[in-house]
C-alpha cells in the first residue's frame, strides 16, 4: 500500500517535471476550450502533435494494456496525469471520442482484431474518431434513428444523415448507429453498431457554426456509402446495447477513459480569482453581500460534487440508491458549470458585453465563451432533461 503510494508520488513528480519542460507555449492563435470546438486545421495539427507527444512520453492510456499502446498501470496514474495537465494549463487532449468512449468500449466488448486495429492509433492521435448517433429528426429519442445500412454481399450500403458530428470533418472513423431492419416490433431491435470509415466515397461532413462563433461539429451525409461488413460491431440488430454501453462511458457512469483532460479546466477558485479583480459600485465586487451569498452557493455546489465523487467509493454511503450518485454526475456537474460560467461572465460590469476578439474583454472573453461552450455538456451526450428522466426512472423507479 505505502509502496504504491510512494510510486504514485514519484510518478507525480516525474510527470510534473516533464510537463514543466514540454507543455507547449501559447501558439498565438485561439485554442479550443473543449474537444467539441476543434474548428481549424491549424488547431487540429497543433493538438494532434501535442497528444502524440504526451503519448510518446508514456503518459496517455496509463491503464490500458501495453499490447495496444497503453501503459498497463493502475487508473490512479491516469488520474495523476490528468490532474497535472490541468495544473499546467496544458492544451486539451482532443481525440476524446476515441480515448474516452471508443477505446473503453473496444477494450470491454471488442474482438482481439478490433482492439489490435484501432486502439494504438487512438492513443497516438494517428486516427481520429467521431460519433454518428444523432440525426436531424432524432436526438434525445436515439432509438428512433433512421440512417439505413443495407447488407450487400461483403458490404453494407449506408444512406442517410447524421448531425452534430463532433470532429466529423477530420475523423478517420465513426461509431455509427444505423438501422439494418426497419420492420422490427421494437424500434431498438432494428439497430446495428458499426466502426465505420469516414474517408470513403459517399461520406461527406459539412461543418456547422456554433453559438460561440466557432466550428467543431458537422452534418454528415451518407450517399450509397459502402463499408466493409466487418465494420459491424457485435451482432446485426444488437446495436442498441452497444450504443448504450458507449453512452455509459460518455456520461462518465462507467470508468475506463484514457484521459479526462478533454476541456480547459475551470474551477471554483478561478471564478473567485476572476471576480476578485472587479469593481462594483465603487468597491470590490466581493464585498457586495448579495454576491458573497451567491458565491457561497457556488462553492457549496462545487464541494458537494467533489464530496459525492469521493463518496461513491464508500459502500456504506452509496448503497441506498444503487448507481444514483454515478447517474447524477452529469446532471449535477454540467448544470453547475453552466451557471457558474454564466455568473462570472455577467458580473464584469460593462465588460460583460465584450467577446473574444476584443482586447479589452476580461481574460480575452474567456468566461463568455466558456459559458456558451458549456451547452455542449448540458445538451450533448443526453440533455439535462433526459438525464433527469434517467435518474427518475432508473434510480427512483418512477414510471416512464
Amino acid at each position, binding site marked *: 500500500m505505502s509502496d504504491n503510494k510512494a510510486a504514485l508520488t514519484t510518478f507525480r513528480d516525474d510527470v510534473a517535471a516533464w510537463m514543466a519542460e514540454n507543455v507547449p507555449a501559447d501558439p498565438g492563435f485561439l485554442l479550443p476550450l473543449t474537444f467539441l470546438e476543434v474548428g481549424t486545421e491549424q488547431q487540429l495539427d497543433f493538438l494532434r502533435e501535442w497528444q502524440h507527444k504526451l503519448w510518446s512520453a508514456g503518459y496517455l492510456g496509463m491503464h490500458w494494456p501495453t499490447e495496444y499502446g497503453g501503459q498497463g498501470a493502475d487508473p490512479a496514474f491516469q488520474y495523476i496525469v490528468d490532474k497535472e495537465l490541468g495544473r499546467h494549463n496544458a492544451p486539451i487532449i482532443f481525440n476524446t471520442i476515441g480515448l474516452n468512449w471508443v477505446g473503453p468500449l473496444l477494450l470491454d466488448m471488442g474482438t482481439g482484431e478490433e482492439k489490435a486495429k484501432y486502439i494504438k492509433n487512438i492513443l497516438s492521435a494517428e486516427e481520429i474518431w467521431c460519433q454518428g448517433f444523432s440525426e436531424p429528426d432524432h436526438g434525445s429519442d436515439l432509438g428512433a434513428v433512421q440512417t439505413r445500412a443495407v447488407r450487400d454481399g461483403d458490404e453494407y450500403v449506408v444512406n442517410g444523415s447524421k448531425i452534430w458530428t463532433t470532429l466529423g470533418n477530420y475523423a478517420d472513423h465513426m461509431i455509427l448507429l444505423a438501422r439494418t431492419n426497419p420492420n422490427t416490433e421494437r424500434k431498438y431491435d432494428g439497430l446495428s453498431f458499426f466502426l465505420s470509415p469516414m474517408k470513403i466515397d459517399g461520406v461527406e461532413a459539412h461543418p456547422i457554426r456554433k453559438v460561440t462563433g466557432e466550428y467543431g461539429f458537422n452534418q454528415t451525409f451518407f450517399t450509397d456509402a459502402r463499408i466493409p461488413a466487418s465494420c459491424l460491431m457485435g451482432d446485426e440488430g444488437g446495436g442498441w446495447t452497444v450504443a448504450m454501453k458507449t453512452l455509459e462511458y460518455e456520461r462518465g457512469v462507467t470508468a475506463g477513459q484514457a484521459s479526462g483532460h478533454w476541456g480547459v479546466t475551470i474551477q471554483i477558485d478561478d471564478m*473567485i480569482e476572476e471576480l476578485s479583480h472587479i469593481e462594483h459600485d465603487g468597491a470590490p465586487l466581493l464585498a457586495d453581500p448579495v454576491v458573497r451569498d451567491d458565491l457561497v452557493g457556488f462553492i457549496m455546489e462545487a464541494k458537494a460534487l467533489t464530496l459525492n465523487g469521493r463518496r461513491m467509493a464508500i459502500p456504506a454511503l452509496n448503497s*441506498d440508491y444503487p448507481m444514483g450518485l454515478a447517474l447524477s454526475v452529469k446532471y449535477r456537474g454540467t448544470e453547475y458549470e453552466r451557471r457558474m460560467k454564466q455568473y462570472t461572465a455577467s458580473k464584469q460590469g460593462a465588460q460583460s458585453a465584450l467577446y473574444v476578439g476584443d482586447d479589452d474583454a476580461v481574460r480575452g472573453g474567456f468566461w463568455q465563451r466558456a459559458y456558451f461552450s458549456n451547452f455542449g455538456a448540458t445538451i450533448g451526450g443526453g440533455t439535462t432533461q433526459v438525464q433527469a428522466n434517467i435518474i427518475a426512472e432508473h434510480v427512483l423507479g418512477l414510471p416512464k
Partner: protein
Amino acid sequence: MSLLQNVAISVSDEQGMLLDVARGFVRDQTPIAAVRAQLETEPGFDPAIWKAMVDMGWTGIALPDSVGGAGMGVGSAVPVFEAMGGGLLGTPLLATTLAGQLLWRAAGEGAADWLGRLCAGSVATVAILDAADWGGANTGVRLDGQGSLTGGKRFVADAGVADYFVVLASEEGAPVLALVERSAVQEGAISANVLIDLTKRAANVDFTGVMPAEVIRGESVSTALRDTLLLGALLTAAESTGAADRCLTSITEYLKTRKQFGKLIGSYQALKHPTVDIYVGMENARAFVYHGATVVGEGALSRDAEIACRMAKVAADDVIVFAGDRSVQFHGGFGFTWDCDSTLFIRRAQWAQQMYGGAIHHRKRLAKLLLDG
C-alpha cells in the same frame, strides 16, 4: 490552497454498523404509527423507546469512556441522528447529546458526575436562547454574587422532561454555564411552546431565583458554546437528511401508485423532475453531513469543521424544506390532510430550518470564512 479546502469523507466500520443498527431500530421499534401516537402526548415520546436507546448506549456515543461514554467521538452520533430523522423519531436524544458536548467541552473531567448521569439515562438539555436570535449573545440570564440566577430562557428543548439544565448565563459580563437541577426549578416556571413539529418538545423556562448546583467558568465556555451550536447544526442536518430521504420515499411511492388522466402521476415531468432534485439535494446534504462527521474530530472544532457543519446545515435545510413543501403539493388534497405523512415532513422542515441558525445565518458566516481568508 483550493477554496474547497478539506474534502475528507469516510465512514468507520463502527459508524457503518451504528447506521445499520439505528435504521433497524427505527424501522422495527418506532414505525410512523408509533410516532403518530406520541404527537399529542406531553413528553412526546414513549419512555420504553427512550430506555431502549439509553440501553444501546446512544446517550454516551459522543462522550469519552472516562465519563461513562462509548468514546466514539461526536462524528459517530451522526448516523444515529440520520436514522432517527428517517423515522421522524423525537425523544430528548438531541438535547441530551448537546448538553453532554457543552459540558465536556467546557469542563472536561470536571463535569464527570453530570456526564455520567447523562450516559446512564438522565435527560439533560441546553438552555441557550434569550430570545429568537441564534446569532445573539444570549447572556441575558444573570448570575449574581449570591449565586442566584435572574432571567429566563426560551425554546429550551425537552425542558418538560429534563433532569437537569445547562444554562448559558453571565457573571460580571463573562459567559458562564450554570447547572440547574430540575428540582431547583419552580413549579410553573416551565411553560411549554406550541411547536410546529409535533415530534419535538420545547418550553420557556424562568430561572429567576434559582440557585445552580454548580457553575462552570472560564475561557473554555465561549469555545464550548460556539462548538455546541455548530454540532447542533450538524446533528440537526443529519436528522433533516434522514427525514428528507424518508419524505422522498413517500413521494415516489405515491407517484408510482396514484393515477390521473389514465396515467401514473409519476410519469408527469412536472412532478418527476422536482422529485429528482429532491433526491440530488438529499445526496448533497448527505455528503456534507458525513464530511462533517469525518472532520469534527476531538477537541475544539477546526476551521474546516466549522465550514463543514455550516455547509451541512445549509444543504440539509434547503432539501428538507423543499421536500416537505413539494410532498404536500404532490399528494394533492390528501397531502393537505393531517393523516398524510406530508404533514409530519413539512412540520419537521419548518422546525429544523431555524434550529441552530437558519441558512442565512450560516451562509453569512461561510462567506466570511471562505471569501475573506
